[in-house]
């Protein structure tokens, strides 16, 4: 009865590789023991990066979405994997951030050869790889229940990363994170049940053709979106994020803040644009935009008031996530323009990617600073730019992207969103974007000001940090800025494979 919607495409095996390669590496680490963990992880990072770039190349050359139907069982019963242009961009972004953070962690763990650290290191590598697999599964999943399992795997990999050092406050933060995430995924699961009861399928592509305005679908979407908001830490459900992200070790914070919260945001995007009927999507979009704007303003002010660098960056994450939610009303599209043809769609995707790069760079730079000085109290960091020039530059470049100052990926993203807000007639969103940029400028300059200050007593690092540790942060920050110079290429990539979703848009 349900039409045949998926067929395995030539490059489809790449999607399978993206999910199972990291899992195989985790099993290999368990089999070979913690001593070889770093080596196996390094090999997998390289292989995963190759898979992600090959996926993007295949997408660009074929111009259509990649699909893989697992076991050739068609979706109502089987499971399909599918990567369209946006998913392909997410895969590449994830691979770049994971590889950079992996290199940083390798250099950092190389510094401390103490005996008790071996287990924490092996745990870090295993969780990093498990998390990568779960992220890829979220980005290419087509089956709602499969996505639930991927989200849970993501949580189970992210929670141990929060409490790697085993201090009481990080364990407490991890537990709070786990409870928020659990309730979120349970609400999502309940929504899945209702959708299956109504439509008899959980396949997103099939649902986009079957969905109609009925109360069961609205209830299901409301449950799923609220659940995902708890995981994405949008205001006012952000309470768990600052302690969890600020307490984790630097490489873990970078991954958590840059990538992990993007997975639920990506799912909300797919639910609202692909599954929800257009009228419902418009109402949901307005609500999400209000929450997003509140998130930008409230958490930017909170970031300004933080005394600790890592807490400031964590609050800035919640604020920057808000930008992704004001995309919804702006990208609602019109009769002759589908959502993915709007400039807000491109702006939102660019914001997602540039924030991932910039935020990972910031957390790594903050990690170097904390390692060098033994603390991250902003007030006591006067003149750190002279001791750690590369980290200060990385922090500043990442800050450019967060503020939206040209030339940077964040500038293009915020400029597109601002234009969309003005054109679509949302002056309050335009004002929020501008205010958010000013506030971001204020909290970034607070740190840059300290970096360039000349204190009476020059600040002395507690221990020397080798420069190779700083390169990872610098490379990520440079990538966030360089994203601003390639604005037109993603334009085409982000729209690949969107046309066959939601036939309501095609005449």
């Amino acid at each position, binding site marked *: 009865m349900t039409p045949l919607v998926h067929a395995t495409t030539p490059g489809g095996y790449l999607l399978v590789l993206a999910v199972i390669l990291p899992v195989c590496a985790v099993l290999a680490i368990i089999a070979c023991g913690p001593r070889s963990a770093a080596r196996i992880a390094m090999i997998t990072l390289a292989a995963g990066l190759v898979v992600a770039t090959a996926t993007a190349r295949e997408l660009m050359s074929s111009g259509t979405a990649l699909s893989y139907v697992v076991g050739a069982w068609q979706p*109502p*019963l089987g499971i399909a994997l599918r990567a369209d242009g946006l998913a392909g961009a997410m895969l590449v972004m994830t691979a770049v951030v994971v590889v950079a953070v992996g290199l940083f962690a390798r250099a950092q763990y190389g510094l401390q050869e103490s005996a008790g650290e071996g287990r924490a290191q092996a745990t870090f590598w295993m969780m990093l790889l498990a998390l990568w697999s779960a992220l890829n599964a979220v980005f290419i999943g087509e089956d709602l*229940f499969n996505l*639930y*399992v991927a989200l*849970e795997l993501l*949580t*189970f990999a992210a*929670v141990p990363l929060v*409490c790697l050092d*085993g*201090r*009481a406050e990080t*364990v*407490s933060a*991890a*537990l709070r994170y*786990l*409870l928020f995430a*659990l*309730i979120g995924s*349970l609400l999502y*699961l*309940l929504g*899945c*049940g*209702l959708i*299956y*009861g109504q439509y*008899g399928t959980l396949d997103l592509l099939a649902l986009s053709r079957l969905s109609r305005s009925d109360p069961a679908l609205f209830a299901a979407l409301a449950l799923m979106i609220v659940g995902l908001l708890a995981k994405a830490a949008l205001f006012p459900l952000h309470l768990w994020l600052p302690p969890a992200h600020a307490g984790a070790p630097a490489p873990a914070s970078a991954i958590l803040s840059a990538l992990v919260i993007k997975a639920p945001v990506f799912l909300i995007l797919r639910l609202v644009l692909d599954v929800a009927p257009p009228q419902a999507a418009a109402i949901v979009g307005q609500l999400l935009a209000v929450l997003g704007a509140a998130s930008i303003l409230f958490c930017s002010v909170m970031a300004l008031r933080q005394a600790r660098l890592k807490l400031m960056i964590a609050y800035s994450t919640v604020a920057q996530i808000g930008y992704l939610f004001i995309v919804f009303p702006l990208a609602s599209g019109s009769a002759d323009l589908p959502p993915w043809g709007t400039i807000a769609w491109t702006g939102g995707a660019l914001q997602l990617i540039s924030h991932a790069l910039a935020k990972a760079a910031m957390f790594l730079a903050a990690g170097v600073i904390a390692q060098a000085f033994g603390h991250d109290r902003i007030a006591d960091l006067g003149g750190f730019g002279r001791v750690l020039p590369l980290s200060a530059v990385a922090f500043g470049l990442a800050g450019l992207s967060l503020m939206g100052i040209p030339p940077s990926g964040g500038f293009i993203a915020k400029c597109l969103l601002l234009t969309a807000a003005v054109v679509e007639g949302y002056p309050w969103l335009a004002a929020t974007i501008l205010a958010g940029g000013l506030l971001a400028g204020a909290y970034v300059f607070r740190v840059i000001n300290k970096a360039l200050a000349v204190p009476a007593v020059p600040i002395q690092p507690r221990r020397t940090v080798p420069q190779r540790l700083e390169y990872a942060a610098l490379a990520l920050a440079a990538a966030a800025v360089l994203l601003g110079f390639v604005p037109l290429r993603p334009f085409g990539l982000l729209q690949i494979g969107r046309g066959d979703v939601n036939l309501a848009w095609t005449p």
Partner: protein
Amino acid sequence: MTALFQPGALFGVCGAALVGIGLFVVVTHPGLLRRIVGCNIVGAGIFLVFGAVARRGGAAGLEADPVPQALVITGIVVAFSASALAVALLKRLSELNTGDRAETTELRSGS
């Protein structure tokens, strides 16, 4: 009124009630262990709803729809792992807290 006592509808209503009770526990109780139990009650309610959904598949001529049942089995495994992780973290947290109070110096040198 009799429609409510059809097996499918009854399971669905009970599931919804369990979800409500569980959410109430999670939101109102400050104790972490109670909140974990609350999550489990929500989970049980959701699995009942899935059971009710499976029952409705009988209209297609089958005894019951097997897909939701397969989903429930996976869901139980995931919920079990989640509970195990949460309880392990809670146990570690209470050990750390009591250890801090009893012999702070010894714990710090030990860890």
